[in-house]
């Protein structure tokens, strides 16, 4: 994997030449920026152009780099009032086997917003990740997990705690959704809001006051072992492929190896991906040298115009290997990784398990590690892109697909637990259980994984009725303030 630092990535992407016809069409802007880009250290490349120039760039960019360029329907650019309106239609309209849109990831964002930096894992908020089990009335919002030492943790706003009111507004049926969203998802630090919450198993609500702060996320939490009659089972909650997760997963595997675990449960139900290298590192640590020897973790495939070279930066296309040592995200580069050498891995998943997290499952399968998947269907994103700035808007269009060592990468409908289709994994469909802490052996998904380990059978559907207070389901999980749409709705 060739690395390009964050700060120079944009300058490379906007200055590469070669035979990319689109690169020569960029930076001709209806409203050119001036000054120095705070991220690239260079002046904005923008020159005075027209809206038509921006549309021509987009058409050429899509024609050359979009994974499904041949499926983009003809569109008259003059019919679109803005460049982004035009970009919105420059994507495939085909469907997946399940009937979903084939491309659910076509996206654009204001460049200044996209370029915002932060200390890794630091976000303004209370340090709680909310799961919205119903976003329209009757709404239901519960805590999925919190960050150690955060305002939420200090107020015991732990997994399963249900929010009843926000600043006096009823969450379930209230009409002032702006008030609800503003309170649940503070835009910055030092915002104080009052919540009425209901703890798991109780009937009397309590009031808590939380003030938002810059909270540092702990991407790997709750690492421990579970004693069973057939040996110790290791558990790790892995929530985000942040840079600091490199240190987290290495420390976790080191501890679990020292504890002599016989099996491992990796809980990535809320892990939407991030650094692909961390997925590779963890896969190697699980599988070990023998299972991964001579194999790649993930091969990147661009469209058929570019079988050899990356169309964005011109480099030779090379796979992400199974990293056998640290890549230097939050640990020093080149430290040998510990290995568990497991032939089987238990993975807890949800709809928020996405992208690099799905690569973890697929990469393990490529190394012939048997994956047992418990939970719900993953998001289905075997794709990636290089964000491209033009005239102050950053465009995200799918440019490559990742496949494992066996050449498999067709999971655009997600990995379905227990499915029998090609590339699927054995396992069980189990609803998310907000009535128990993550890592608790009684939590439905972990309990199912432990039971499957003993008997290779799944819990019967009636088991879900045991989940107390209706605190089960899938919901939508929101981790940060960087949203483009309102979250709770009328």
């Amino acid at each position, binding site marked *: 994997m060739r690395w390009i*630092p964050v700060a120079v990535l944009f300058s490379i992407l906007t200055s590469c030449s070669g035979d990319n016809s689109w690169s020569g069409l960029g930076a001709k802007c209806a409203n050119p920026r001036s000054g120095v880009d705070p991220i690239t250290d260079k002046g904005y490349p923008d020159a005075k152009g027209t809206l038509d120039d921006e549309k021509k760039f987009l058409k050429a960019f899509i024609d050359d780099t979009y994974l499904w360029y041949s499926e983009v329907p003809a569109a008259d650019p003059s019919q679109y009032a803005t460049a982004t309106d035009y970009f919105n239609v420059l994507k495939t309209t085909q469907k997946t086997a399940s009937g979903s849109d084939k491309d659910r990831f076509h996206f654009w964002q204001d460049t200044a917003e996209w370029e915002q930096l932060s*200390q890794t894992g630091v976000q303004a908020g209370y340090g709680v990740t909310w799961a919205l089990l119903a976003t329209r009335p009757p709404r239901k919002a519960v805590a999925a997990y919190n960050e150690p030492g955060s305002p939420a943790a200090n107020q015991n706003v732990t997994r399963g705690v249900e929010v009843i009111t926000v600043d006096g507004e009823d969450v379930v049926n209230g009409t002032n959704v702006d008030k609800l969203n503003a309170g649940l998802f503070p835009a910055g630090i030092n915002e104080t809001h009052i919540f009425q919450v209901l703890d798991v198993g109780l009937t009397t609500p309590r009031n808590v006051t939380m003030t938002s702060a*810059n909270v540092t996320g702990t991407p790997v939490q709750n690492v421990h072992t579970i004693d069973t009659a057939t040996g110790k089972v290791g558990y790790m909650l892995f929530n985000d492929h942040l840079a600091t997760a490199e240190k987290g997963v290495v420390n976790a595997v080191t501890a679990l190896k020292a504890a002599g675990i016989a099996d491992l449960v990796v809980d990535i139900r809320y892990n939407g991906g991030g650094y692909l290298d961390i997925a590779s590192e963890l896969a190697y640590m699980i599988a070990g040298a023998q299972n991964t020897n001579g194999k790649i973790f993930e091969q990147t495939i661009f469209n058929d115009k570019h079988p050899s070279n990356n169309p964005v930066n011109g480099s030779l296309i090379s796979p992400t290997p199974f990293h056998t040592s640290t890549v230097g995200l939050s640990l020093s580069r080149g430290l040998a990784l510990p290995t568990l050498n497991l032939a089987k891995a238990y993975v807890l998943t949800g709809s928020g398990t996405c992208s690099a997290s799905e690569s973890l499952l697929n990469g393990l399968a490529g190394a012939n590690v048997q994956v047992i998947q418990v939970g719900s269907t993953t*998001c289905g994103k075997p794709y990636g892109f290089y964000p491209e700035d033009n005239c102050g808007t950053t465009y995200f269009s799918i440019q490559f697909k990742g496949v494992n060592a066996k050449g498999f990468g067709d999971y655009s409908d997600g990995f379905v637990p227990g499915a029998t289709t090609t590339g699927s994994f054995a396992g069980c469909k189990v609803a998310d259980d907000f009535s128990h802490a993550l890592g608790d052996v009684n939590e439905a998904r972990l309990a199912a994984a432990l039971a499957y380990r003993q008997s290779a059978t799944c819990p019967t559907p009636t088991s879900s009725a045991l989940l107390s207070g209706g605190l089960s389901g899938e919901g939508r999980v929101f981790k940060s303030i960087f949203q483009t749409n309102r979250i709770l709705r009328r």
Partner: protein
Amino acid sequence: MIAILSAALVMASAVPARIVNPTPESRASLAAAVQAAFNGAKVPLADDALTAESTLVIERAAHRDARGLRIQGRELSPPERFQLVKSGGACVLVHERTGRRFPLDHTDCVEVAAGE
């Protein structure tokens, strides 16, 4: 010549360090240094930044789409890293990619002990 030798000795004695007893002033100094490294862009930092270790990692904020899914789910570009060193009694923030050095005012730091 003496000045060059002195500078070389100072560089040679630079050791990884962490901040102790952070104050509002030391946090402001650290924030200003990081902001200067990124041409004035404000970068949210934790209050306890660089108090437990000598490396400060900066990455793009994790933007998510309307479904709550991370937009850049396969991140291929590495983060920016800074190293805090103690050099000649001063606490200095070093930007690894550029090598730029930012002395921190109002900041106390100690050498990171082996194994920390």
